[in-house]
């Protein structure tokens, strides 16, 4: 009897603990919607901001964030693909693979402020790209590289041996094999990785706050040397310097948009991975 009581109560406790975790997500989402909802309007989304963000909208901030994200993904993808292919197809040694994998995971866990600092030194100063959206894209590209790479690598490793054997039996050499067997079948992994990488880049503030952004004065970058306004830094400045509650509501509105972008990306990656599982089970 007692053991059953213990079992039931333990399960109850665990359920509550788990439920709290789920509740957190709902709370966060709810709060952002509740606080930021009032700020949302057609004008808000498509107007420029003015008067220190007290008035106007966040159009150019959104564009800035999207530019940095997409640029980072475009730069990072070929590199991630190359690295993943190299690791799976061309390296034989298990130790090298393990070491590299550990390094990549650790790079993933690196504090992003360090990416910002060293990125500024390397790209901004050494390569003289200054404080600009180019620097921002480069730094973010390096930052999301592990995310993309791991995803691609898992996709490549998930390709059933059958396909490779078929390829080899047809007489394909390594390069052709890569082209016609591996890449088509790991495309979904690339997309998943890109989506997750984009989500990560969208959420990043520390790496870009003093390397790529400006709060006012620039709408769209007109040369590679321009900084850009972004949602993340806009929220940061408003959060610290809001003179009145109207500005703070706009900060919440911007946060809602940012959250929305991130959640859409992650949700898409779920759908894709769902299909991936089905494909792999065929």
């Amino acid at each position: 009897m007692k053991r059953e009581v213990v079992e039931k109560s333990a399960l109850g406790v665990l359920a509550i603990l788990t439920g709290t975790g789920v509740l957190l997500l709902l709370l966060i989402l709810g709060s952002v919607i509740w606080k930021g909802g009032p700020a949302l309007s057609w004008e808000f989304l498509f107007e420029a901001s003015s008067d220190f963000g007290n008035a106007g909208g966040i159009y150019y901030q959104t564009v800035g964030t999207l530019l940095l994200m997409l640029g980072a993904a475009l730069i990072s993808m070929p590199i991630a693909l190359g690295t993943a292919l190299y690791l799976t197809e061309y390296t034989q040694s298990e130790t090298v693979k393990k070491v590299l994998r550990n390094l990549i995971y650790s790079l993933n866990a690196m504090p992003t402020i360090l990416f910002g600092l060293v990125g500024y030194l390397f790209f901004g100063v050494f390569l003289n790209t200054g404080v600009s959206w180019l620097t921002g894209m480069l730094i973010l590209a390096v930052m999301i590289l592990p995310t993309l790479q791991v995803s691609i690598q898992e996709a490549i490793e998930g390709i059933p041996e059958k396909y490779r054997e078929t390829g080899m039996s047809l007489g394909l050499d390594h390069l052709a094999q890569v082209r016609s067997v591996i890449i088509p079948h790991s495309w979904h992994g690339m997309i998943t990785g890109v989506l997750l990488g984009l989500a990560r880049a969208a959420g990043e503030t520390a790496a870009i706050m003093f390397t790529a952004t400006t709060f006012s004065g620039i709408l769209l970058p007109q040369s590679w040397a321009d900084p850009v306004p972004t949602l993340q830094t806009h929220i940061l400045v408003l959060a610290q310097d809001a003179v009145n509650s109207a500005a703070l509501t706009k900060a919440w509105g911007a946060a809602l948009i940012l959250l929305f972008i991130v959640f859409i990306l992650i949700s898409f990656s779920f759908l894709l991975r769902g299909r991936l599982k089905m494909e792999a089970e065929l």
Partner: protein
Amino acid sequence: MAALSVVCAGTIFLYLLRESAPVFFAEGSGFLTRSDWWVGESYGAGSMIFGSFMVTGIALIIILPFALGGAVFTSEFLSPRWRLVIKSVMELLAGVPGIVYGLLGMSMLAVWVKSGFGLIDGNTIFTAGLLLGIMILPTIITLSEDALRSVPGEYRETALALGLTRIEMVWSTVIPQAVPGIIGAIFLGMGRAMGETIAVMLVIGGLDKIPAPWFDVFQAGQSIPSKLGREAAEAIGSGLHWNALMGLGLTLFLVVMTLSMAGNMFLKRVRM
């Protein structure tokens, strides 16, 4: 091309080393132990290091029951469909941008802490720790759950066949097997907590002092990334101040690298 990742990590390390060298010459090992940071006079990183560890510690203490409880429940007692739901929820939580957490922390959490504990101000080490705990929950839950799931089914079946209740089975057979993986998850969570900049910066209070007494977490404090975030723009490029900030960065880099590599090693043992 694979060398690129090695190059990246190496570059970061070397740059940090090179840029921070002067401050180590100026302050010696006192840089790490003394807690007096006053630009122009002395650079002791003690308060920041203390703050970083304190905040991470609080985060872990607060969130571990939820994270581990959640992991055990999800992996052992939920159907595959519900498991997928939990995983998805956690992944969404993990994707929430740091600045959004910061905004939530500033406008809501800090206010609750202030009125709930009757403080002068809600920006304290405790608030930062609590916020960080929420931020690392998804990481620890997901990885711990992976660790638990990879324990082979035979163990569970044998235990049940012997007449143990499910809870007893989990407690005595599954969990002990998954301990290395869980430790790995915790290390990785710690690494993430130590590296978070924006959210902590907005709620920790920015005071470069070790609280007196040291365990009074309801005072303002400072963590390494938060300090970097606040002062980097001022000192960027040159000068002893910059070197000192780089020294902070180097310390952070080494600590997080160690935690991550150790964490990954523990997890690897499970990820066979």
